[in-house]
């Protein structure tokens, strides 16, 4: 028995002693900070997810709900990207640039509270200095600049929605007292200044190779600086006119002092100037229409491209959770052989947008619809600027990949004597005398002495159903891949890159910032610089040069209730012409604080409906309201999103935005 006892004790000792071996080893299958932050590969690995989630509003951007496209965490807790339905709620639909199923009330859909990603990037900004020795000085700064660009991008996406937000620039330790973890909202001014500081560092220290456009370099930082500071300046200047008051406004969490506008416009202007001085240029070509389509498809690194989100082929069998391919072509082209295979034409360009370009008149001086000899005469003429043809397909244009001559017609008039305004009433129950229409595309009918005639075109108009065929008379051409293999025109098949920042946008930023600064300072050199930027854009677009008014009239007071001079309005219109359907317009109309006035009374977008007049053998276009009767409203409190309720529950220090 005693022997057993000794054996037991000895065994216990053996077991106990071996337990003293240090088992706290670095696991071989996990990457620690040292591995991640001391090598190029480590940093790339760490940043990949952060880039993937970067709030870039690209082909996969849907303004509402969980499907924003930049890998946001949804309610179920997983990433959602590359949702093919995104185009149905594409941003431009709420800026009247296009229509689609996204034309709905815009309230409470824009939320984006992304402190999980901010924590990730803060980890890098905090840990990278510990491994400074692993890098040479210059490269270390470049990597740090990249990290701060990314942090600024995330904060920008929040500041433009909420105004002032809590500034978290350190990694919070979850064991700290709750009091310290609950951070108050910074003022909107301080939030923008925080973004400014990150971007300033990134502009000064980022990679200086301007052809390296797929990761953040100093020029992409400058481009974001221009965009963000233009936003801040606009809010400082125009938010006062919304008339919203309350505790959040009083505390400076919503809106800024109008006198701060100048500072931000100056930052924006300086950033644009830096990009201009670096030698970026507009992409041009002898064939202006062709050259303009190339901006969005060709690799223009070192020329017009500043920052590009690259998309690639669809390599997984599960078409979700990656944002690196899109369904764009399938969602903008009409259905047809070698065109859209699955859905087709989920968004349709509006006359509201197209009428901003130089086009032939469709109503004559006396108010009657202009008679064209063919639909081609509307677009195949010098009266239409090449940029307009490059952005849109009209009836009679040929889609380049399939070679299809697009055929859009809404109906026929046997005879027509009415004025245009009598044919385009303020509702979508348009019924006219002597007019024959059909609900479906590709219909023919026997019409009296005219025999069998085509009523509707093969590609539209379609009135019962809003996809696959035209509902407005205009298809979107911008960004459509003219090099595509027709087999890729399916869901998740498109591979064209998204130009996050291009020099064309910088020139528009610069024009606006310069003109706003001129209004603040009276410096005419700035005004002339603004006019020059617009001239460059218009020249490349093939549009006629514009003569700005020497003493511009105030056109804002009557329309918006606050002053806005006609030259500034022209610069804004040019911005819309240049940047339409690039997810800019819906943000611009918020930034300028005009959305609630433009979309005041259930705004109804307009179309370009092609008809044939049989008795005259001529063709006309009518600006009917949108077929589907989708109307737009905007409540001004939505200029600032409501702070999420679950966040207020977690952190009672968060002040609600006014109006909620």
């Amino acid at each position, binding site marked *: 028995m005693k022997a057993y006892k000794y054996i037991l004790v000895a065994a216990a000792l053996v077991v106990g002693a071996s337990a003293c071996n240090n088992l706290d080893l670095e696991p071989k299958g996990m990457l620690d900070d040292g591995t991640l932050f001391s090598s190029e590969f480590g940093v790339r690995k760490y940043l990949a997810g952060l880039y993937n989630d970067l709030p870039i509003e690209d082909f996969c951007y849907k303004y509402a709900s969980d499907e924003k496209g930049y890998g946001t965490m949804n309610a179920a807790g997983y990433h959602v990207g590359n949702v093919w339905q995104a185009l149905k709620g594409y941003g431009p639909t709420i800026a009247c640039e296009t229509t689609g199923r996204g034309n709905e009330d815009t309230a409470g859909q824009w939320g984006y509270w992304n402190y999980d990603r901010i924590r990730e990037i803060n980890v890098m900004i905090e840990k990278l200095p510990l491994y400074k020795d692993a890098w040479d000085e210059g490269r270390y700064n470049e990597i740090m600049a990249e990290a701060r660009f990314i942090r600024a991008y995330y904060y920008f996406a929040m500041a433009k929605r909420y105004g002032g937000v809590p500034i978290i620039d350190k990694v919070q330790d979850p064991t700290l007292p709750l009091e310290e973890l609950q951070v108050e909202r910074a003022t909107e001014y301080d939030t923008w200044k925080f973004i400014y500081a990150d971007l300033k560092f990134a502009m000064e220290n980022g990679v200086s190779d301007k052809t390296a456009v797929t990761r953040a370099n100093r020029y992409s930082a400058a481009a974001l600086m221009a965009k963000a500071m233009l936003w801040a300046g606009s809010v400082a200047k125009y938010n006062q006119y919304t*008339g*919203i008051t309350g505790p959040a406004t009083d505390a400076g969490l919503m809106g800024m002092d109008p006198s701060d506008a100048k500072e931000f416009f100056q930052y924006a202007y300086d950033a644009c100037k830096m990009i201009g001085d670096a030698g970026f240029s507009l992409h041009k070509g002898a064939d202006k229409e062709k050259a303009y389509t190339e901006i969005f498809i060709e690799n223009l690194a070192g020329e017009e491209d500043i920052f590009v989100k690259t998309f690639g082929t669809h390599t997984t069998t599960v078409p979700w959770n990656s944002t690196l391919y899109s369904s764009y072509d399938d969602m903008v082209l009409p259905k047809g052989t070698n065109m859209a295979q699955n859905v087709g034409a989920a968004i349709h360009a509006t006359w509201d947008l197209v009428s901003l370009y130089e086009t032939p008149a469709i109503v004559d001086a006396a108010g009657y619809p202009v008679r064209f000899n063919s639909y081609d005469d509307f677009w195949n003429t010098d009266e239409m600027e090449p940029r307009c043809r490059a952005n849109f397909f009209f009836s009679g244009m040929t889609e380049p990949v399939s070679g299809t001559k697009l055929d859009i017609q809404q109906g026929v008039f046997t005879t027509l004597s009415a004025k245009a305004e009598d044919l385009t009433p303020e509702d979508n129950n348009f019924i006219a005398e002597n007019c024959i229409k059909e609900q479906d595309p590709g219909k023919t009918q026997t019409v009296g002495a005219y025999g069998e005639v085509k009523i509707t075109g093969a590609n539209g108009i379609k009135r019962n159903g809003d996809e696959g065929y035209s509902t407005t008379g205009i298809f979107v051409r911008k960004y459509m891949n003219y090099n595509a293999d027709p087999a890729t025109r399916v869901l998740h098949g498109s591979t064209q890159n998204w130009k996050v920042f291009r020099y064309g946008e910088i020139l528009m930023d610069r024009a606006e910032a310069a003109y706003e600064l001129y209004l603040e300072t009276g410096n005419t050199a700035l005004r002339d610089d603004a006019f020059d930027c617009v001239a460059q854009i218009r020249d490349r677009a093939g549009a006629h040069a514009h003569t700005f008014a020497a003493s511009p009239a105030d056109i804002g007071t009557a329309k918006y209730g606050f002053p806005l001079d006609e030259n500034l309005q022209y610069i804004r219109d040019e911005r819309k012409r240049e940047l339409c359907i690039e997810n800019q317009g819906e943000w611009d109309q918020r930034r300028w604080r005009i959305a609630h006035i433009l979309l*005041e009374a259930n705004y*109804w977008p307009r179309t370009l409906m092609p008809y044939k007049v049989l008795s005259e053998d001529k063709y006309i276009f009518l600006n009917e309201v949108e077929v589907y009767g989708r109307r737009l409203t905007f409540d*001004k409190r939505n200029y600032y999103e409501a702070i999420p*309720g679950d966040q207020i529950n977690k952190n009672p220090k968060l002040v609600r935005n006014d109006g909620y």
Partner: protein
Amino acid sequence: MKKIIYTILGAALLIGAASCMKIDNFAGPEAQVSGKIIDKTTGEPMLLDHGVNHIRIWEVSYSLDPTPQDLAIKEDGTYQNTKLFSGTYNMLPRDGAWWPCDTTYNVAIGKKGTVQDFEVTPYLHVIDFSADLSGTDLTMTCKLQAPVTDNLPQITQVRAFVNNNMHCGPGNQMNYYNTDAYRVNVRKMWNAIGDADGNQTVDPYVVTVPVKPGYTYWVRMGVQLNDTFNSWNLSKVIKVEVPSE
């Protein structure tokens, strides 16, 4: 032995089943509150539209930072809610076209019902409202009068509201008339439209809308102000019967 096991099992089941019964002894939402929103300058209830304006309430019995609820106000300026929990509430008539007023603190609301009136000063009165029928054109006219003119928010627009039932206003109208064609876009501060005495508009606002023969309409006019809520001051409602052709 078997008997004992069954007895014990039976007892356990009984106890177990009984323990599943929970008595919810918390009172249901039976407390009631009602009252009026009174125009301080006239002593009359405010002219409002059904469900457009709200009284915001916070139940402060249990929490210092409660989630607010909104009680709808009726078109005659009264409100009533019979499905609240008993407790102490702070109340504020919040999103209407009146000068911001103070929160009423610690209103005890219970089963027996509480009457709580609020006095507010409207931004504007819509006065001299008339609706004249000429054939199938209905012409509506009104003027504006301001009890307080200093710091009055910008006047955004004057609009005619038309409905085919007695509820009429910005929240209850025929969509057909809700377009820019049937409004006056004002966008001016009071000093640009007020008269010499400063409290009444000089020119009347006139909106003409088409109506159909044989139909009955309820119409009114309203003026919108550029305050936080883009709120509307409204005229009284007039019933218009259009004769058959």
